[in-house]
């Protein structure tokens, strides 16, 4: 059964029709990736799901809940966490405080084990736990953003270009993290420009082009597709 279902989604910015009636679904336990060029509408789609944007029409159902009518701050409680594009970590808070905020909805629980788990995966964060997040380098901030989202123990994770601006080594690492998170039972919807990597770890993929879904299918099949190779995998 599909955990997340998006139907006929339309998003506007003023007069700009950014998302033009797309439909897709993500099944429990899957990694699904949205790939597409700059401005294709990947971020807009994720924002519509996580409630930061109100779609003009269409439906989004997560785990039986209608997300379109749910306020943004309640969506996380349903088990849907997002790592936003551009990281958006809390710059003047420390690394540790950022992680604590990730677990905001789990305030009453004991978090020590979770911190240890995050630090084990992202050791750089442990070194910098007292540093103000704003002074971290780009890659460090990206790790923090992922760590922060994981702190809420979500059922499903939305990741918006997690590899942007990361070193090849770290890109590999981040994708490893994503894979292991997924293996831990978290469903993943991944926005990526780095189509090659994304297709490697994903089960299925949708290709977005200027607000519409141009192609979809098994990730491995798309990776072989000539058009996809041409446009997104660099020949």
């Amino acid at each position, binding site marked *: 059964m599909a955990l997340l279902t998006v139907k006929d989604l339309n998003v506007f910015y003023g007069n700009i029709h950014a998302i033009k009636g797309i439909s897709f679904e993500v099944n429990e336990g899957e990694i699904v990736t949205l790939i597409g060029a700059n401005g294709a509408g990947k971020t807009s789609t994720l924002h519509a799901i996580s409630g*930061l944007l109100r779609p003009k029409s269409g439906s989004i159902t997560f785990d039986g809940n209608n997300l379109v009518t749910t306020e943004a*701050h309640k969506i*996380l409680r349903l088990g849907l966490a997002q790592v936003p594009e551009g990281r*958006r970590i*809390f710059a003047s808070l420390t690394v540790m405080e950022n992680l604590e905020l990730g677990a*905001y909805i789990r*305030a009453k629980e004991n978090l020590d084990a979770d911190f240890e788990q995050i630090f084990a995966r992202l050791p750089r964060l442990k070194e910098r736990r007292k540093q*103000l997040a704003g002074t971290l380098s780009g890659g460090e901030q990206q790790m923090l953003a992922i760590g922060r989202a994981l702190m809420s123990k979500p059922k499903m994770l939305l990741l918006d270009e997690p590899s942007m601006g990361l070193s090849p080594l770290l890109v590999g690492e981040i994708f490893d993290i994503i894979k292991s998170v997924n293996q831990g039972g978290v469903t993943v919807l991944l926005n990526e420009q780095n189509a090659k990597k994304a297709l490697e770890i994903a089960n299925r993929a949708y290709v977005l082009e200027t607000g519409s879904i141009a192609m979809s299918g098994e990730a491995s099949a798309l990776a072989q597709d000539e058009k996809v190779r041409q446009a997104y995998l660099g020949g």
Partner: protein
Amino acid sequence: MKSNPLEFRRKEGLKPSFRIFSYSGKRPKKGKSGKNNFPFLARSPQGFAAGLGTSNHFFRLEGVCGFMNLFLTQTINGLGLGSIYALVALGYSMVYGIVKLINFAHGDIIMVGSYMVMFIMTVMGMPLILAVIGSILFCALAGVLIQRVAYHRLLTHDAPRISLLITALGVSIFLQNLFQLLFGSEVRSMPTLFDLPAIQLGELHITSANILNIVVSVVMMIGLQTLVARTRIGKAMRATSEDAGAAKLMGINTNHTVAFTFAVGSGLAAVGAALYCNTYPQIKPTMGNLLGLKAFVAAVLGGIGSIPGAMLGGYILGVAESWTKNFYSNLTDAIVFGILIVMLLVKPSGLLGKNVKEKV
């Protein structure tokens, strides 16, 4: 029937602090000895000479170290005044910290709080404690209402900061004129609110109002600091202040958080108002102007956004004011603003402000 609802507060004679002072017994007797000997006091702009002169004066008359006494008295005067600045500054700082808005209407919330205390006590005839609580609740509510009506749309629509500032100024003008219509523009007098004894430490005389101001402001500051740094809602406040969108992704109800901030800030203003009325028993619709401005300066001095900073800024401003009044009272405001400017130039983010340099 013209029974005065304030009757229960009324006291025969002078207020206790005054009485205690007169009991101290060491005060120089008016007349013979101490007079006409101190021409240096005739004009104030004598810099330190005046202070030292006074010290001589005290020394000779009372055999105590008068300069220390003067120094301490003026410092305590300053701390008392500064506590009120500090309380108001806390509200400025909090709201600024969360929504980056210089809430110019905050000074006027003090005015609203004062009028509420006056209204509940004198018109409705309720006891003081209810008046203070009522005023706090009313201000908290008013704060939230103002935020909802005047700021919310701008805050959520990513409007230019300056539009928010202008809106705040608009709210300030609105409140002043509304209260002018409701209560008239003339000054209203207030009875003594908290009738506590003064403290006499040797030569040092500390009025009850000063003690109360200092104690309450410190308690409020600690409470607020704990709230913001330690509690869940405090963390939510800080997260919202950084990036409301990301805060929502953490499951934080940012609307509630911002409303809560305004409620707390305005409630604090009501506490400030009660202390203010107790210390300077006179209110008018424009009273928030100068007070607000000074408190704002205090908030900036301490590092706007920082809670202990607001406190420190308030004290420094109060003490600086007290001391300049001692030496050159005509230029007080100029000197106070001068201090502010120098401090800002030396430490642009204020004394305790975090200097988060923009990462390039």
